[in-house]
């Protein structure tokens, strides 16, 4: 049984699965239920300045459904906690006391004023929480008030606020990054310069999840109107994986712990984040869809898989895929594969043929063989693009077979077709 206990930026947790700062972590009631279910940690829903709490709307979520699969993507326009600061702090203190082996991190979002950060940090410290996470990510609502993504999109602000926080607290400081930037390395490097103990990403993607064609308004609709929201759920995982990898392989960010967030719903998702260098992972949408019980299989599945692969813990796979993440320019242009259809497994739907015929390289012939529909790859035409493999509804029916070309590997940097090629002199 693999040991899933994790230390992330000095914060210990019983497993790498934390609940992300979001509605499921708004109250002690929810967080205690999560800890009872087995979650390794939780990032408490973002606290704001003391004073009259913020106000949320009725109708807060929207969802993307694809082919009957609910919540493939999910969006929210909910703001930070709408409960009084002291109520949250009291509950945090009690929960941490009752659950010492779980990570309890407090997400914060206050205006870009040093005193505001200083005073709230002091009050959070009193709860004995394990750390804070600076919410520089939310793309909706709070950003209009100069907080959230409005800060996260300006590296100088990220650095400045991070530095304040590091000065004013002994707690580990995690910086939650927004994906709503052209290059995530800007804010990530700024967090590092500011002294962050770790980064967590991604926060939600700015989005309109859909338009209600009856009411002619973006979803979720609030009294006839809607606004852009924060997009999350399984559909954003690819964006998150890329941004995690960008930071993990950036020399300037070397050594900066990463907490991976974005569409994680299963242990396989988590393993992919781990392989790209995320030491902990945070989950929200999957829990909001299915409840906290999903942690069962996440822990169990990851542990069994690590055992099968001969790893004692997550450390065994941490960043293991990173050496293989590279720029396009370093890919071998002499590497060749062609598609192979397993005729026994083929159900003769013709989707590989029509995908290739209509939109690619006319490399799959449609024939009749003994009165039966028959599809076969024309090896000479196949460029090894993988399209047929993904269009095929049958798992493992089409495989890509390596073809020995007898040619030495060559990248674009050395390729004769590249006018700017580097030639060995």
């Amino acid at each position: 049984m693999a040991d899933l206990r994790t230390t992330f930026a000095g914060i210990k947790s019983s497993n790498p699965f934390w609940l992300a700062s979001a509605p499921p972590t708004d109250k002690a009631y929810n967080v205690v239920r999560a800890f009872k279910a087995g979650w390794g940690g939780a990032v408490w829903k973002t606290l704001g300045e003391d004073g009259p709490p913020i106000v949320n709307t009725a109708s807060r979520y929207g969802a993307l459904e694809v082919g009957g699969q609910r919540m493939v993507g999910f969006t929210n326009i909910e703001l930070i906690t709408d409960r009084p600061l002291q109520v949250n702090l009291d509950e945090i203190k009690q929960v941490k006391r009752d659950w010492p082996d779980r990570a309890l991190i407090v997400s914060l979002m206050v205006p870009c004023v040093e005193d505001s950060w200083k005073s709230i940090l002091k009050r959070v410290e009193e709860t004995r929480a394990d750390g804070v996470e600076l919410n520089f990510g939310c793309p909706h609502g709070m950003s209009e008030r100069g907080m959230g993504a409005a800060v996260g999109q300006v590296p100088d602000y990220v650095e400045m606020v991070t530095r304040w926080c590091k000065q004013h607290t002994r707690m580990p400081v995690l910086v939650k990054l927004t994906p709503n930037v052209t290059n995530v390395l800007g804010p990530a490097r700024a967090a590092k310069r500011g002294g962050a103990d770790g980064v967590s990403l991604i926060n939600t993607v700015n989005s309109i999840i859909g338009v209600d064609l009856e009411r002619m308004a973006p979803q979720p609709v609030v009294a006839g109107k809607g606004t852009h929201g924060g997009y999350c759920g399984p559909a954003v995982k690819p964006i998150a994986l890329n941004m995690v990898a960008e930071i993990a392989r950036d020399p300037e960010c070397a050594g900066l712990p990463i907490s991976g967030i974005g569409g994680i719903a299963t242990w396989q998702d988590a393993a992919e984040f781990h392989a790209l260098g995320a030491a902990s992972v945070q989950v929200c949408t999957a829990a909001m869809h299915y409840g906290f019980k999903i942690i069962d299989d996440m822990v169990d599945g990851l542990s069994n898989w690590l055992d099968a692969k001969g790893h004692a813990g997550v450390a065994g796979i941490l960043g293991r895929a990173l050496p293989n993440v590279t720029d396009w320019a370093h890919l071998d242009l002499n590497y060749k594969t062609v598609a192979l259809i397993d005729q026994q497994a083929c159900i003769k739907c013709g989707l590989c043929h029509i995908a290739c015929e209509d939109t690619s390289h006319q490399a799959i012939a449609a024939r009749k063989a003994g009165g039966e529909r028959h599809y076969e790859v024309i090896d000479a035409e196949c460029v090894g693009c993988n399209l047929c493999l993904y269009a095929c509804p049958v798992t493992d029916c089409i495989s890509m077979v390596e073809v020995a070309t007898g040619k030495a590997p060559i990248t674009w940097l050395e390729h004769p077709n590249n006018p700017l090629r580097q030639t060995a002199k």
Partner: protein
Amino acid sequence: MDDIAARRLEADELERKFADIHVPLDRKRALIESSRCYFCYDAPCLQACPTGIDVPGFIRKIATDNVKGAAITILSENVMGGACARVCPVEVLCEAACVREAQESKPVRIGALQRYATDWLFEHKLQPFKRGAATGKRVAVVGAGPAGLASAHRLALSGHEVTVFEARPKAGGLNEYGVAAYKVPNDFAQAEVAFILAVGGIHIEFGKALGRDVTLAKLRQDFDAVFLGMGLAGVNALALDGEDMAGVLDAVAYIERLRQAKDKGALEIGRRVVVIGGGNTAIDIAVQARRLGAEDVTIVYRRGPEQMGATWHEQELAQTNGVRIKHWARPLRLMARDGRLKEVEFEYTQLDEQGRLLTTGDRFTLPADMLFKAIGQTFVASPLGELLELKDGRIAINADRQTSLTDVWAGGDCVPGDDLTVTAVQDGKIAAAAINRALRA
């Protein structure tokens, strides 16, 4: 209660037994089921549909909530798409061809989705078809069953004036008079007829039978073209002594009474019922006998389950309705008491090495208050007046459904081939296209 009695079941139970056998898909279920369709290229289901409905095309439209478009896609190829969604043996046609059948033995529920779309159009009372500009040509159609109605509809769309001669008081053919009641409840057959006739240009003369009230020769004189779409008027006999005794009935006639009965409880049914035959009629009468309250219903068929005309789905339906199917036996003797059927003696059968059906010599007896003969129907050619060439006892046709007379076309059960609503519709459709070409030549 007597061995033969009416009202074996309470009225409300009877109503439940003869209500829709299938729960229609609601929108959510239709969306999920439609999402299972792979949208195959050159799809096998489409090829398997005798009317060539663009199945992946209409299913994709359901998936996008374009239900109107889906219904029109269906009805454009098969104007009786609503009936076919209910009565088609999809398990041996489109759904058997579905690649998901090959993949997971669970085809997309094409029939149920087709019903979802066509029901939607009917519920919204939309009429997607429009009669073509009048050509002044007149076509006679004999028989207002699926073949006749399908041809009449297409001919009307082409602008021809159609007169349909129907022997019975209602149109719809077997969908009205023959199919099991729980497959087409709520007077669906008449709703579909009304939908077809609503396009205009089609006039039905009821109570007009070929050979009795009209002759083919006269129709050829009075009209520019003739389409024959009659059904099978003859039924096979057991050829046993005492076949006319009380308790021995013709399944087709009984089903017709059942279908037309306002009060199904008024029909008398035996306590112990034996059905002879292996086709859909045998299944339909056996299941309906059970649903009328018969205690023991046994289908006896002279060959095995693979040779039954009824599909495996229909055989399962019978069995889940408590019907026993006894294979490899044929009736030998009808035994009466007080002039009424009481027992039937059977002998076992088997195939010899040449595949011929022989009796084994072993016998058994079943108690029976009622016996239904469901051993096939035949085409009665005499009303044609010996004008047409026949093939295998039915009207000979070419690929255009044209008969040996150049101005007479035919389709449906009166021509060789499968006796299905869907093939009848296709016959009518093809014949109408050929007639239209001929009339415009």
